[in-house]
């Protein structure tokens, strides 16, 4: 018995230490970003980034919100993308999954494979890009171009479908006897019953839209339609390019965004996720474990 408790103690000590270190390492970057966004610029330049601000300054935020138009516009675009994409995407995913989960639908396997095959083989990004730009004119429709391409994901459809398949037939049978059609059964019964899985899927869809910079990068030409992440990327990459030229040539090439301003932008772009995270995290975890049963 003595050896057993010793080994337990060893395991617990190393285990707690190991997990604690990893947890701290996971959040340190966030602390550093937040801390440097409220640090005075000269302190960053002299001492570099630190975990606790050496010299507190709200200057970076004052500067960003001194000319708030661009930031607010980007925020508006991202909020629009996220809300429109999540509502539409969730409804369409659920509706598609519902049809594929109906046992009396004899063609369900054929259609499932029709969707599934797109994950096995793709034409690559070039034909996709040409189609979007030349035939769908996405470059002229930034509000559509930044929402539509992510509306469906085969992976999400499969997760929702397997959840709906597990709902007992008895529930829908009685509705059917009462004369309810397939669409009504979906809206009034299956959709509400699938709330647990739909909540998680909605969160993952929303995070995808919120964090997206790629569709702006591909299709958006006017800066007033840039999504928040792409706007942030533009600021950062301009600064890095200037910095690179400066260090190669040794010449001063112009004023670049200050370090603390860049970090404040990163905080502003990530803020809502961090704020909502503690409340929503359990839905994410639930979604993952539902999906893990059979991805």
């Amino acid at each position, binding site marked *: 018995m003595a050896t057993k408790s010793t080994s337990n103690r060893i395991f617990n000590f190393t285990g707690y230490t190991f*997990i604690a270190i990893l947890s701290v390492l996971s959040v340190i*970057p966030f602390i550093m970003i937040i801390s440097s966004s409220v640090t005075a610029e000269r302190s960053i330049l002299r*001492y570099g980034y630190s975990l606790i601000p050496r010299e507190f300054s709200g200057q970076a935020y004052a500067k960003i919100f001194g000319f708030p138009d661009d930031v607010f516009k980007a925020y508006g675009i991202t909020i629009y993308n996220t809300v429109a994409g999540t509502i539409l995407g969730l409804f369409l995913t659920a509706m598609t999954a519902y049809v594929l989960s109906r046992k009396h639908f004899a063609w369900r396997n054929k259609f499932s494979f029709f969707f599934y095959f797109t994950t096995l083989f*793709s*034409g690559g990004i070039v034909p996709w890009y040409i189609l979007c730009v030349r035939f769908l004119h996405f470059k002229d429709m930034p509000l559509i171009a930044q929402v539509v391409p992510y509306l469906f994901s085969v992976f999400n459809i499969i997760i929702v479908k397997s959840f709906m398949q597990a709902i007992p037939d008895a529930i829908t049978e009685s509705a059917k006897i009462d004369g309810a059609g397939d669409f009504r059964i979906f809206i009034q019964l299956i959709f509400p019953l699938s709330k647990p899985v739909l909540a998680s899927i909605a969160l993952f869809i929303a995070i995808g839209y919120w964090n997206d910079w790629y569709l702006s990068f591909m299709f958006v030409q006017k800066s007033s339609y840039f999504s928040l992440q792409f706007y942030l990327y533009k600021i950062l990459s301009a600064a890095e390019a200037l910095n690179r030229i400066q260090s190669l040539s040794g010449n001063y090439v112009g004023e670049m965004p200050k370090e603390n301003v860049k970090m404040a932008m990163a905080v502003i*772009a990530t803020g809502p996720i961090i704020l909502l995270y503690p409340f929503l995290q359990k839905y994410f975890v639930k979604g993952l474990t539902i999906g893990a049963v059979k991805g």
Partner: protein
Amino acid sequence: MKSSNGTFFLKLKKYKTLLLMLTPAIIFFIVFSYLPMFGVVIAFQRYTFDGGIFHSPWIGLENFKFLFMAGDILSVTRNTLLYNVLFIIVNNVLEITCAIVLAELSNKYFKRISQSMMFLPYFISWVVVGAFTYNVLNYESGAINTLLKSMNLEAFDFYNKPGIWILIIVLVCAWKSFGYGTIIYLSAVMGIDGEMYDAAEIDGANIFQRIRRITLPSLVPTVVILVLLSMGNIFRGDFSMFYQVTGNNPMLYSSTDVIDTYVTRSLMTSPEFGMTAAAGLYQSVLCFAIIMAFNYLVKRYDKDYSLF
């Protein structure tokens, strides 16, 4: 013939509502997935903007010939493969270790809080991750270099040393995704029959023996399936990750350029659409072949887990 047509139309009528509900998805996947599949023909054309897909001249395999003669495609393929193998090894080892340790620890609050902390990076955009990487590593004011300078050591120019980026990208990828994988493995560990542990305890097994003799062997199926599934994507790279973490820095292409960044960059900068499409098709065919191969392996291992 007539009767089968008859039942077809009967079914069409019977499934009217269901088919109508399926229509948005069908249109979506035809437009965004199936039409581009036919669009691969431009890989065999000298694509011009005026000619478009229907009137550009056919040139057979010329695009592929130039693609492989230019040589870049082989090095980016090698990079893609190398990174994915490293990701699979590093991430899985880290995730399995964390899951096993978390499952054995008893403090509920510690477990919940640490899991939340480890899962957080998963929700951050690659743009922000890229910004952070740059601020830690850059030559003038990066955190590491200011630290080195404060100790009177010479600053290290990360953006001039392509080799070290293999390590950096593997670390960044692990940092961002290991919380996610840990949760998946943790749910697998929790699914192990508790009676086995009780029996082992009665037999006097200590915690290390329990992990080695019960937990690890019970996890093998999950590990095999997850690893085999990720093998299917071994020729795909996460464009956002590679593009943002390196800041698309040309100095680092030799060790950080993967097929996806190579293709996307060519698409945005080069007028040779045909050749870029050829590179994309080359990747799709590689992926398809490898998925087929690994699906065959999964099927042999356990039929229930095969993809189709």
